[in-house]
């Protein structure tokens, strides 16, 4: 088949990109070569629109063993242990086929983690759906949840946390972001950098079929009316084979046979082979006739671009082939020597004894396009003047009921009960808390992990929103007693070719960078997903941030359930009464405008570190960060979880209790301390200049406010737990 510009454009390449290819090769590419270029140069693999901005993120730190650029990031958790973790999107496939899309997303991220030698120990996910009223939402939610569970449960990896949001901006483009943490010994981490000449290149795992051909290109195309035509590219996940692949890889990794290993994810054999060669500054030669194929008559083009799941590419030490084959035979997986490393710095492909492609590796990687796209700066919206008298007339109980039962606040138990969250026997904090916490098997240590997003804040003001999401995950980790170490980010945005969407991206990234830098909380891995839009309408900018922290002694872990009657409740951090962009503003006032709450990084850090200090001194009985829905929402959840009541008195100097209870000012926590520790606690808070309010005490039952409002715990529970169950049944 002769290649021309028209065919190149059908492959998603731009006209000038095609011209650049011809110039680099000094000839017209053949169809296989064109397929390879289109896969490597699309947004998903090349990060061509995002690269120059991502460079600005802080990625180094004392605890960082590996930052972005590998299959996943790696952090030091002391002794000989390290945690490998990453988050990745699978948005477009999940909209087309929610079960398989979500399942293969979970499978893909777990492969990224065990490729580095780590056994996955926890999964999390951040999923965003359209408005509950949208007729597709229910089926998409059901399919995605079944898919995530179907894959993770079968793998035997606990799903310990996550986040689910609804917003009409996702009506035509849902988000499915999956995150995995793995545990590895520091001296047994595997990388994807090839090394040495004439080393055997090994293919292992499932056979190659025609699945997902051009999936990576699909991830970089927005949905339009022709969506139906894109359907045949969806891959089917096989968690059983992945479980075998995991065990086989870890068994081989226990020895010293592997030089480099890379999973075949987006753009399959193409990107895995090229990345390994590129990192090692080597060439690679592959005989495609030797690739195990599921279908007959597969062409080189199809073999190179197939996105069949559960496959790995390995570069072995010479002479280790038999040993490796024995392991993969034991686990009943395909194993084939398909090529070798060379010094040509080319990727050379053969099929039926004929050369079918020859491309210099650097043209695919270093010379791939990089764009400094035009972007538009957003202004901070003006504050809304709320009618105070109107606020005063609101009944707290009624308002609280509406907030607690709103889709974005309500309990997500219906979802996480479908995920096995206890397998592996080390889950010490289940979903539904501030972070999932998993013990490091056989030690006193535990890691905490959380994932969050705040699309509404990011939409109102991307710079502030970007900062806020990072801080939110930081607080989630502190609230369970973990010292935050690093983050992974999944940047879900609209089209980079539109100035507004690109601006949202640039400024969110800037905000993320500022917060990470200030909090010494670097980015170690991540993924960018652009073109999340339907027709011309982009989603709200949605960076999802996954944070990981360490608890040195797991017995000091904190949960959010109120513990003891008579204990005192403090609000850490100052409440100014910021209502704009709050859940309260949207749900109760139907007000969508105004700026998001300001993020003060000094207070954020100071409040968080002081709280960790209090936790370390065993003063804190329970803690929960204040976020969506404000103080009263946070307290209600602590009452529900602990099956205890509270008696609250709000400080007199505030004008309006509605503002006090529902405002979403940042940097705040609710903590429970015993009466006898109260003095010591306030002393430490004062010494560190941390603002706090003493707002009440724990009682046996009922939430009572200023001796006027009374809500029973059963009422709170029913407000909070019923909505999702009723919606789904």
């Amino acid at each position, binding site marked *: 088949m002769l290649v021309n510009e028209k065919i190149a454009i059908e492959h998603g390449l731009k006209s000038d990109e095609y011209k650049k290819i011809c110039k680099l090769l000094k000839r017209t590419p053949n169809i296989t070569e064109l397929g390879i270029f289109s896969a490597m140069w699309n947004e998903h693999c090349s990060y061509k629109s995002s690269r120059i901005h991502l460079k600005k993120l802080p990625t180094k730190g004392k605890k960082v063993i590996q930052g972005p650029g590998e299959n996943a990031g790696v952090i030091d958790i002391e002794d000989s242990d390290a945690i490998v973790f990453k988050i990745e999107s699978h948005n477009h496939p999940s909209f087309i086929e929610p079960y398989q899309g979500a399942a293969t997303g979970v499978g893909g991220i777990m492969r990224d983690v065990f490729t580095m030698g780590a056994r996955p120990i926890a999964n999390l996910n951040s999923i965003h759906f359209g408005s509950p009223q949208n007729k597709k939402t229910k089926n998409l939610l059901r399919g995605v949840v079944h898919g995530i569970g179907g894959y993770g449960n079968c793998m035997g990896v606990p799903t310990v946390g996550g986040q689910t949001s609804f917003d009409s901006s996702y009506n035509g483009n849902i988000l499915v972001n999956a995150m995995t943490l793995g545990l590895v010994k520091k001296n047994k981490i595997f990388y994807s950098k090839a090394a040495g000449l004439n080393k055997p290149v090994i293919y292992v795992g499932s056979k190659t*079929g025609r*699945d997902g051909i051009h999936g990576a290109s699909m991830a970089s195309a927005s949905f339009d009316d022709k969506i139906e035509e894109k359907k*045949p590219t*969806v891959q*089917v996940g*096989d968690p*059983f084979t992945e479980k075998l692949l995991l065990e086989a890889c870890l068994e081989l990794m226990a020895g010293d046979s592997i030089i480099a290993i890379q999973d075949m994810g987006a753009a399959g054999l193409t990107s895995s082979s090229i990345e390994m060669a590129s990192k090692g500054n080597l060439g690679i030669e592959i005989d495609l006739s030797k690739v195990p194929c599921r279908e007959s008559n597969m062409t080189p083009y199809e073999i190179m671009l197939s996105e069949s799941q559960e496959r790995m590419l390995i570069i072995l030490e010479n002479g280790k082939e038999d040993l490796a084959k024995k392991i993969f035979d034991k686990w009943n997986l395909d194993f084939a020597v398909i090529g070798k490393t060379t010094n040509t710095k080319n990727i050379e492909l053969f099929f039926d004894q004929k050369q079918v492609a020859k491309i210099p590796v650097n043209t695919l990687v270093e010379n791939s396009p990089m764009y400094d796209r035009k972007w538009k700066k957003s202004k901070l919206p003006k504050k809304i003047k709320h009618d105070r008298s109107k606020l005063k007339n609101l009944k707290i109980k009624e308002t609280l009921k509406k907030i607690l039962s709103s889709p974005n606040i309500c309990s997500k138990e219906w979802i996480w009960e479908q995920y096995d969250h206890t397998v592996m026997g080390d889950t010490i904090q289940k979903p539904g808390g501030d972070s999932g916490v998993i013990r490091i098997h056989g030690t006193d240590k535990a890691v905490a992990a959380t994932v969050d997003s705040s699309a509404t804040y990011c939409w109102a003001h991307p710079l502030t929103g970007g900062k806020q999401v990072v801080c939110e995950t930081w607080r989630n980790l502190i609230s369970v007693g973990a010292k935050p170490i690093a983050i992974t980010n999944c940047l879900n945005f609209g089209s980079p070719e539109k100035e507004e969407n690109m601006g949202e991206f640039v400024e969110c990234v800037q905000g993320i960078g500022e917060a990470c830098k200030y909090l010494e909380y670097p980015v170690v891995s991540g993924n960018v997903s652009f073109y999340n839009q339907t027709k011309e309408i982009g989603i709200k900018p949605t960076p999802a941030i996954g944070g990981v922290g360490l608890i040195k002694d797991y017995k000091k872990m904190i949960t959010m359930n109120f513990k003891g009657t008579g204990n005192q409740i403090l609000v850490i951090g100052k409440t100014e009464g910021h209502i704009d962009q709050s859940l309260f503003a949207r749900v109760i006032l139907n007000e969508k405008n105004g700026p998001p709450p300001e993020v003060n990084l000094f207070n954020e850090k100071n409040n968080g570190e002081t709280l960790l200090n209090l936790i370390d001194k065993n003063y804190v009985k329970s803690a929960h960060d204040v976020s969506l829905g404000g103080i009263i929402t946070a307290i209600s959840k602590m009452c529900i979880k602990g099956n205890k009541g509270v008696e609250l008195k709000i400080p007199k100097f505030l004008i309006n209790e509605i503002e006090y209870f529902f405002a979403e000012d940042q940097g705040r926590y609710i903590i429970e301390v015993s009466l006898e520790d109260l003095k010591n606690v306030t002393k430490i808070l004062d010494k560190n200049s941390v603002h706090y309010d003493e707002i009440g005490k724990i009682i046996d039952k009922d939430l009572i406010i200023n001796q006027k409002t009374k809500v029973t715990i059963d009422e709170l529970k029913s407000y909070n737990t019923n909505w999702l169950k009723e919606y789904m049944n």
Partner: protein
Amino acid sequence: MKVSAVITLKKDVLDPQGKVIHETLDGMGFNSVNEVRQGKYFEIDVKENDPKKAKDLVESMCKKLLANLVIENYKIIETQ
């Protein structure tokens, strides 16, 4: 009138179940199997006596619900 429909995975779509069943059969001594593909079978009794109309009705059910056309094909196999 009863109409039957068979739903199978499309030709090029991976069938993990079929693959594992094949391997197990092989392990049990059934060595002459080339391939196993697993599907679903539906027997639907419709209030319709015209075979053509009954078939059309079930076909529409296959398209709209019974088959996931992203990965599956359907076949109306018989009426009685």
